[in-house]
């Protein structure tokens, strides 16, 4: 049943891609049908996912397509269900958001049907990845997802940065896909077949298992965007249409996480501690570098993209912890780490989509994506601002919103480090916890900057000052996500209770104690070890607020608030250029962590072009400068070397033939 609904979701997504083409000329109908089907498909996926997750059932099916001896295996289990739910939720929301948002593209340079077709295919690809239960259909769905999203990134291809970003994206997607394929190849070679069941049963030696793991780690990491495989992410996400960025950043990265979990827990099974250490290390590095790079960005969507790197890092930290515990035969703790990672996947999908949708709303209404030119948007777009604020609080991992819960769970897992029977590892794990703490604090700093610079203060450009609230659909979509952020933050026990079946499937145990104290108290290990009463926190804040308000309210009548000018030190009226900008806000952090970024910073004194002087700042990416550019250079140099073979002289060509012959004759004799 759940699988049928999931297939319905896929069908609806494909329908949303192609059915509206019947109305290719009538934009209104095109938009309506496309996004309606998309939304319905999302809803169907949510239903299917929830059924699989809550009913704790595994449904399988064989579809007779694909290769003759390798039919397409489909399976929906709780793990797939959770991620199906995540994808479906965001897709459904995007279905509400889309029609109003794509208004911008109606009369643009590119035809709208291109956008809707590939959006549908993209979503269908993501659904199919979750459902695939053999390597072939997995790769098929996976690459469908990659290619479709490539076209979406390249949608506004009249801009060169779109083209470049799309190229880098597709290139890395291709490489990643190949790595994954190889990973499956190892398993299939030992398991004798491509179905997941056969692979899971493959008798792997420890060395081959590690090779398969590394391949999968790189492959999925490429898509998930862990450092240093993240470089496509900050390029591709900003240039895609915002609802696509929301899907890509919020959901597609989760699909990679899903694949990684599926591969390492389900297919490989016997986990080595070295893998866990690797995942934890890369996760920590991604988290900290992601947030540090995010801090330095002033393009709103690029900043959010770097935050995706950070959050994926946090998810990987959870997974890494889980792997380490699992390898030391501590399944309960392993379950805790896994639950934390899964929960964070859900949360990140929610708040990152919310933030991207907010950024889209800002972009649509002010045509501005540069933080340096924003400001004061809260006055024109109050509801968007409120939703965005909720997103900011959530992603900064502040109670009582959802981001906090999953980070808290990750902390709890990290603090159980000493349970491990190895001194070095158990002392390293708390360090990871410290990194997580630093990440969280820096993320908060970053979102103070984002919200403060974009929505508060004075508008820094004309267009921004005229921005008005978006239409109902867009606001509604953001509202839904904001509400989800709150609900998943305030009622974590229910969520953890539902997610619990996944570690039961993968590791054999769940977290029996997590919800034993009732729905108010989240006690992952035991009540005395740690507890978090999220509803009580919300209640407490409200209560405290109420008391203060009741106490102060009478005074308000006595001495009403007087509105006056801002204090300007007596120098005359303030203007928007006196405010701290995005760059200046992060200047202290830039000083503190100076070596982290390749910085090109110049202060140009007054000259003709810049009568007021000029400050120039460019923050690059070391991964790009030190890894990718050299690879590119090596590639081009070797291509140049290889080109010598095609020198143009026919006598040389014939000499090749001659010497090849001689060589071969010499070899065989």
């Amino acid at each position, binding site marked *: 049943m759940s699988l049928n609904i999931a297939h319905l979701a896929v069908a609806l997504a494909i329908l949303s891609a192609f059915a509206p083409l019947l109305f290719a000329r009538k934009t209104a109908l095109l938009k309506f049908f496309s996004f309606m089907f998309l939304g319905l498909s999302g809803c169907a996926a949510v239903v299917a996912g929830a059924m699989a997750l809550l009913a704790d059932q595994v449904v399988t099916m064989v579809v007779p397509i*694909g290769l*003759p001896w390798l039919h397409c295996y489909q399976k929906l289990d709780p793990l797939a269900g959770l991620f199906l739910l995540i994808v479906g939720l965001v897709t459904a929301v995007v279905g509400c958001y889309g029609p109003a948002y794509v208004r911008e593209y109606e009369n643009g340079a590119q*035809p709208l049907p291109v956008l809707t077709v590939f959006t549908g295919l993209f979503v269908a690809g993501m659904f199919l990845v979750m459902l695939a239960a053999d390597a072939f259909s997995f790769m*098929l769905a996976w690459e469908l997802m990659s290619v479709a999203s490539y076209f979406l990134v390249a949608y506004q291809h009249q801009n060169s940065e779109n083209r470049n970003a799309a190229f880098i994206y597709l290139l890395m997607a291709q490489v990643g896909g*190949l790595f994954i394929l190889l990973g499956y190849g190892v398993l*299939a070679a030992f398991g004798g077949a491509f179905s997941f069941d056969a692979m899971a049963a493959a008798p792997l030696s420890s060395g081959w298992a590690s090779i398969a793991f590394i391949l999968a780690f790189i492959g999925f990491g490429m898509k998930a965007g862990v450092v240093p495989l993240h470089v496509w992410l900050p390029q591709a996400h900003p240039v895609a249409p915002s609802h696509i960025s929301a899907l890509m950043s919020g959901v597609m990265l989760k699909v990679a996480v899903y694949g990684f979990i599926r591969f390492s827990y389900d297919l490989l099974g016997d986990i080595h501690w070295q893998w866990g250490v690797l995942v934890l290390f890369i996760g920590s590095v991604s988290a900290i570098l992601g947030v540090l790079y995010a801090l330095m960005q002033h393009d709103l969507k690029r900043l959010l993209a770097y935050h995706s790197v950070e959050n994926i890092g946090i998810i990987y930290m959870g997974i890494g912890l889980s792997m380490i515990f699992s390898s030391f035969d501590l399944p309960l703790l392993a379950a805790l780490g896994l639950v934390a990672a899964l929960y964070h996947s859900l949360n990140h999908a929610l708040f990152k989509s919310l933030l991207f949708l907010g950024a889209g709303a800002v972009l649509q209404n002010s045509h501005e994506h540069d933080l340096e030119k924003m400001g004061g948007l809260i006055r024109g777009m109050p509801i968007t601002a409120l939703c965005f604020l909720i997103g900011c609080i959530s992603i900064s991992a502040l109670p009582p919103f959802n981001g906090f819960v999953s980070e808290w769970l990750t902390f709890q897992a990290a603090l159980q480090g000493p349970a491990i029977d190895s001194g070095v590892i158990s002392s390293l794990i708390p360090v990871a916890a410290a990194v997580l703490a630093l990440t969280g604090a820096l993320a908060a700093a970053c979102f103070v900057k984002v919200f403060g610079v974009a929505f508060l203060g004075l508008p820094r450009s004309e267009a921004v000052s005229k921005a008005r609230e978006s239409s109902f659909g867009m606001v509604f979509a953001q509202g839904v996500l904001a509400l989800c952020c709150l609900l998943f933050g305030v009622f974590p026990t229910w969520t953890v209770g539902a997610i619990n079946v996944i570690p039961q499937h993968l590791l054999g145990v769940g977290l029996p104690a997590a919800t034993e104290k009732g729905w108010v108290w989240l006690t992952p290990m035991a009540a005395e070890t740690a507890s978090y009463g999220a509803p009580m926190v919300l209640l407490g804040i409200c209560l405290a607020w109420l008391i203060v308000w009741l106490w102060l309210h009478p005074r308000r009548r006595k001495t009403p608030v007087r509105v006056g000018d801002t204090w300007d030190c007596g120098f005359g009226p303030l203007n928007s250029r006196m405010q701290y900008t995005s760059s200046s806000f992060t200047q202290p952090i830039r000083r503190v962590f100076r070596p982290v970024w390749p910085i090109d910073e110049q202060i140009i004194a007054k000259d003709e072009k810049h009568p007021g002087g000029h400050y120039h700042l460019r923050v690059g990416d070391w991964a790009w400068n030190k890894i990718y550019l050299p690879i590119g250079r090596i590639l081009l140099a070797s291509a140049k070397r290889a080109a010598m073979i095609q020198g143009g002289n*026919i006598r040389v060509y014939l000499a*090749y033939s001659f010497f090849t012959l001689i060589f071969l004759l010499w070899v065989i004799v």
Partner: protein
Amino acid sequence: MNALYLTLLLPLFGTMLFAVAGHRRSAGTINMFICVATFATSLWLAINVFNQGTLISDGKLFYIDGFNVYLILLNAFVGMTTSVFSGPYMAHEVEIGRVDDGRMRLYYSMYQGFLFTMLVALSTNNLGLLWVAVEGATLATVLLVSLYRTPESIEAGWKYFLICGVGIAQALFGTVLIYFAADKVLPGSDETLLWTVLNAHAMELEPTVLILAFVFLLVGYGTKVGLVPLHNWLPDAHSEGPTPMSAILSGLLLNVALYAIVRFKMIIDPALGTDLPGKIMMGFGLVTFATAGLLLHRQKDVKRMFSYSSIEHMGLMTFAFGIGGSLATFGGLLHMIVHSLTKSAIFVTVGHAAHVAKTQSIDKIRGLISTQPTVGWGLLLGTVAIAGFPPFGVFTSEFLLFSATMKSWPWLVITLLIGLAVAFAGLFRHVQPMVFGEAPPGQQPVEANMWPVIIHLVLILWLGISVPEVLARWIDQATIMIVGEGLL
């Protein structure tokens, strides 16, 4: 067998007809009809083979089995769709005055002549005749390569002629050696060079002669396949000839040459008892694959670029047949089909693109999608397909190939992987700016017949999502024939 004779006679008739009447305006249409008829008869032939199994002609000169029949069908099909494209394309060339009547006669006549030689090469049972037909194919196309009479096209033609001539001469020596070996087993027989006979007596042949023969055959036919470092003629010939020519060269000729190598390998392998030929082929395949991938980065001419892509894929197929084993062979055979279909579709689109932009230079082709969306998307999707992205069929065959490599030569997979990534980057960095972006001022859409492209892309899409049972059984038969065991 009648189906076969018809299949062979139709193009032969076409060759003669066009030698006289190729310059007429209706020639393009007639050409198309002949090709359609050829395809129909080849389909008939295929159904015959499918129903009755292997066929052999009375004089044992022709022999149709599961291996070659699907290549015959493929040849006829690609020949047909390309002829659909070729008519309007050449009419446009006449219009802009690049070719005159005489050359049009030559063109159509040789188009059919080329198809004829290809079909003969595929269907013959006599290995000597195989050589004659492949050499004939070179001779038929060499003037087409230099059809435009520009210095570059003359140069390309000369290189094509001489390099292939020298190469193919070596193949003849290989054939002579095979004959020499067989002569000892079956002295004085007229049937000594028949593949069926050789295959039956493969175990009795002298291994030391055979390995020597194999080297010559590999270098000889390998020159036609485009194996590095014997490939140098290929990009030149593809880029300078008329585009329909490039489409069938890439789609057919290379396959046929590879087919020849595989046929010989089928005889040589059992006699030899070692996998030395396989290893040599793998080595060639890898070197070819890697070099072509790198050279993709240095292209300035769009047809030249796609010809390097053909070299790359031929390398991959050679590698697959070199590995041997049912999985790799199945993948290699499937790859032959999907590569032919995709590459000819790409060349068709490239032809239109070159007409739109009035140049073949990559730097000057810009914004195809905004000028003519069908051409732009066709080129982009074709490139996506050839780069091995699902849901297109190239992915399926590469998937099989990778799995096979993983099974027997796991470490080589890394080379393949790097090669694929490099090749992909090389293709896309050039194709992207051509299709995307804003069109240069004054660029106008041209009359384009995109049906061949659409049909090909739909077919490879179909093959990517689901390989039909019939085709799979067919390929499996061929696999059984080549390596002795099937997959199904």
